[in-house]
C-alpha cells in the first residue's frame, strides 16, 4: 500500500469529461480525523462520575476476594448446593470461583474503564522505519564475519574445517542413540499373541496352557455356562486367570495376574454373543462363524481393527457391532465383516467349545493379531 499518491493528471476517455486534469489518480490519505473529546474531558462532573465508577469496580474486586476467603474457610468440599439452571454443585467450587472471578474482573474492568474515561485518549503517531539494516551495517557485518574466518585461519586450514564439520555433525548422535535405543523394548511377536495363547511369562511371551482356558465374565471373573447364554445375550469376556476369580479352585486363577493385567486385557478382551443359528448368513463367513462358535454362541475380539477401541455396542436386532470411537460397524452374522466405517479387517474370531462341565472354553487362541494394523502383521 502506497502512501504517496500521484497527483499526475488522469487520462480519461476523450469526450466523456474534460477539464479534470487536476484530479489526483488516487485519493490522498486525509490524515487523522479531528479529535472528539469525551464527556469526562468536558465536564468535571462526568470525570467525577467516571472516577466513582472505577473506584466502585476496584471495590467490587476487594469484595470478591473477601468472598473467596470466607468461602474457603466456611465450606467443606463435600458441601453441595442446588442452583437453579445449573444443578447440584459443590458450594465450595461455586463460591471460590465466583469470588476469585469477581476479584480479578473488578481489577480488570476498573483498569480498562479508567483508561477509557480518564487517561489520554488521543492517538499518538510513531514513525516506522524499514526493517532492513543499512547497507553500511550489512557491509560491516560481512567484513566482521569474513575477518573472523580469516583471523582464525578457518579458510586456510581445510583439515580443521573438515574435522570440525564432522564433529559438529556427529556430536548429537550419542544422545539420539541413547534415547531411541532405550525408550522401549522391541515388539518381537508380542502383538500377535494374547492371553488366549498361554499364561504371560512376564517378558511379553506366553507359556502354553495345559488345558484350554475358560471364558470368564468381565469384571466379575465368573465362568460361563453355554446354557446360560440365552439368545440375544451379550457377555463381556476375559480369559480365566487374568482377573482374580474368588471361587476358582486353582490358586493361580483365584489370584489372577499380579502384574500387567491391563496390558493383557487390552489384547484378550472378547465379546460373546448368542444368535439364533438361523440368523447367520449363508456365506463362507457366516458358516465359518458358526463352525468356530457353539450352537450360535460366537466370540470375537473386542479390540477394534481400526485403532483399538473396545467394540462393545451390540445391537441385538440387527446383529451389528459398533465401535463408539470411529463408528466402524461389524456384521456378526457374516463373521464380523466390516459393513461401515474406517476399519478394514473383520474382528478376529475366537474359536470356542464347551468343557465337560458345560462351561465355555477357548478351543484355540486367536489365529491372527488382534487390534490395530501394523506393518508386519501380514
Amino acid at each position, binding site marked *: 500500500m502506497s502512501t504517496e499518491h500521484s497527483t499526475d493528471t488522469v487520462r480519461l476517455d476523450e469526450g466523456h469529461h474534460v477539464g479534470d486534469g487536476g484530479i489526483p489518480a488516487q485519493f490522498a490519505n486525509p490524515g487523522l480525523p479531528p479529535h472528539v473529546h469525551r464527556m469526562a474531558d468536558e465536564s468535571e462532573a462526568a470525570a467525577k462520575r467516571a472516577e466513582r465508577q472505577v473506584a466502585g469496580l476496584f471495590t467490587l474486586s476487594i469484595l470478591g476476594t473477601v468472598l473467596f476467603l470466607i468461602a474457603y474457610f466456611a465450606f467443606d468440599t463435600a458441601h453441595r448446593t442446588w442452583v437453579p439452571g*445449573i*444443578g*447440584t454443585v459443590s458450594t465450595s467450587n461455586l463460591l471460590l470461583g465466583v469470588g476469585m472471578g469477581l476479584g480479578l474482573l473488578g481489577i480488570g474492568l476498573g483498569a480498562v474503564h479508567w483508561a*477509557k474515561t480518564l487517561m489520554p485518549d488521543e492517538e499518538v503517531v510513531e514513525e516506522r522505519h524499514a526493517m532492513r539494516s543499512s547497507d553500511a551495517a550489512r557491509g560491516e557485518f560481512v567484513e566482521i564475519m569474513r575477518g573472523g574466518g580469516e583471523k582464525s585461519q578457518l579458510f586456510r586450514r581445510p583439515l580443521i574445517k573438515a574435522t570440525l564439520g564432522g564433529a559438529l555433525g556427529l556430536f548429537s548422535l550419542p544422545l539420539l542413540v541413547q534415547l531411541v535405543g532405550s525408550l522401549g523394548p522391541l515388539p518381537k511377536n508380542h502383538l500377535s499373541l494374547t492371553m488366549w495363547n498361554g499364561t504371560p511369562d512376564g517378558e511379553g511371551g506366553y507359556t502354553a496352557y495345559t*488345558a484350554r482356558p475358560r471364558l470368564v465374565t468381565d*469384571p466379575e471373573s465368573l465362568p460361563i455356562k453355554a446354557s446360560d447364554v440365552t439368545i*440375544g445375550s451379550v457377555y463381556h469376556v476375559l480369559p480365566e486367570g487374568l482377573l482374580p476369580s474368588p471361587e476358582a479352585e486353582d490358586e493361580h486363577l483365584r489370584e489372577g495376574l499380579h502384574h500387567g493385567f491391563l496390558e493383557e486385557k487390552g489384547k484378550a478382551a472378547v465379546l460373546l454373543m448368542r444368535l439364533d443359528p438361523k440368523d447367520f448368513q449363508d456365506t463362507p463367513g457366516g458358516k465359518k462363524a458358526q463352525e468356530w462358535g457353539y450352537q450360535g454362541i460366537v466370540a470375537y475380539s473386542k479390540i477394534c481393527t481400526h485403532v483399538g477401541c473396545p467394540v462393545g455396542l451390540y445391537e441385538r436386532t440387527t446383529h451389528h457391532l459398533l465401535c463408539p470411537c470411529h463408528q466402524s460397524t461389524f456384521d456378526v452374522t457374516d463373521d464380523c465383516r466390516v459393513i461401515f466405517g474406517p476399519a478394514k479387517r473383520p474382528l478376529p474370531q475366537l474359536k470356542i467349545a464347551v468343557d465337560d462341565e458345560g462351561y465355555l472354553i477357548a478351543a484355540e487362541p486367536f489365529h491372527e493379531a488382534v487390534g490395530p494394523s501394523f506393518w508386519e502383521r501380514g
Partner: protein
Amino acid sequence: MNALAVRRRHPAAIFILLLLGLIVTGAGYAALAPKQATAATASADQIERGRRLFLTNCATCHGKDGLGSPVGPNLAGVGAAAVDFQMGTGRMPMAEPGVQAPRGKKVTYSAEEIADIAAWVASLAPGPAVPDAEYTTAEGGNAGRGGEIFRVNCAMCHNSAGAGGALTRGKYAPKLTDVEGRHIYEAMLTGPQSMPVFNDNNISPESKRDVIAYLKTMDEAGSPGGMALGSLGPVPEGLVAWVFGLGILIGAACWLGQKGA
C-alpha cells in the same frame, strides 16, 4: 486338570460332551423357565382383563393373539417384565412409527392395567417376570462395584454418565437419568429393542442392584463443577469455549477498543 485334559482327547469325549451339554441345557431350562413364568401367580380374571385391554389397545400391531404382525413383534415369551418396561416407561403404545420407540413423556396406563396386560402376555409363553422389589432399589447395592459392571457392560452405549449415545442408522441408546430401578432391571433382563439381554446368569440380581445403586449415587452426586452440559463430553465443552468464551472475551475487547464515552 492334567488328567482331565488327557481324557478330553478321548474319542468318546465329544459324545459325552454333547450329551452333557444337552442335559445341562435341558436341566437349566427346566430349572429356570417355570420360575420366570408369572402364570401361576396371575388369576384367570386378571388374564382375561389383560386380554381385553390388549385386544383394544395393542392388537393392531401385535396381532389379536399377540403373535406379532408385520408392524409389531411377536410377544410370546417376552414375559411380564418386557410389558412392564415398555408400558411402564411410556414406550408402548408407540405414538408414531419410527426406527425406535422413544421413552414416553407420560405413561398412559395405570399400574393395574399394565399388570393385567403383563399377566396376559406372560400367559402366552414363559418369559421373565417382573423382578423382585428386593433387587430393584439402590438400597443394599454396592455403588463402586456397580460402576465397574456398568462401565464394562453398559457405558459403551449409554455413556459413562448414562447420558445416552448413538447407535447405527438413527437408533440410539437412551439416557438413564431419572429411570426407576425396576425399569433398569427389566431392561437388562429383557433386552428391549436393540439392547442385548443381560439375564440373571450374566449379571446376577445382586450385581444388577449394584448397577442401580451406582446410577442412583451418580444422580445424587450432581455435577460438582457446575453445569454438566448434558454430560456429553468434550464436544459441548468446545462449543462453550468458542461461543461463550470467545464471544464474551471479544465483547470485552470491543468495549476496550471502543472510543468515546
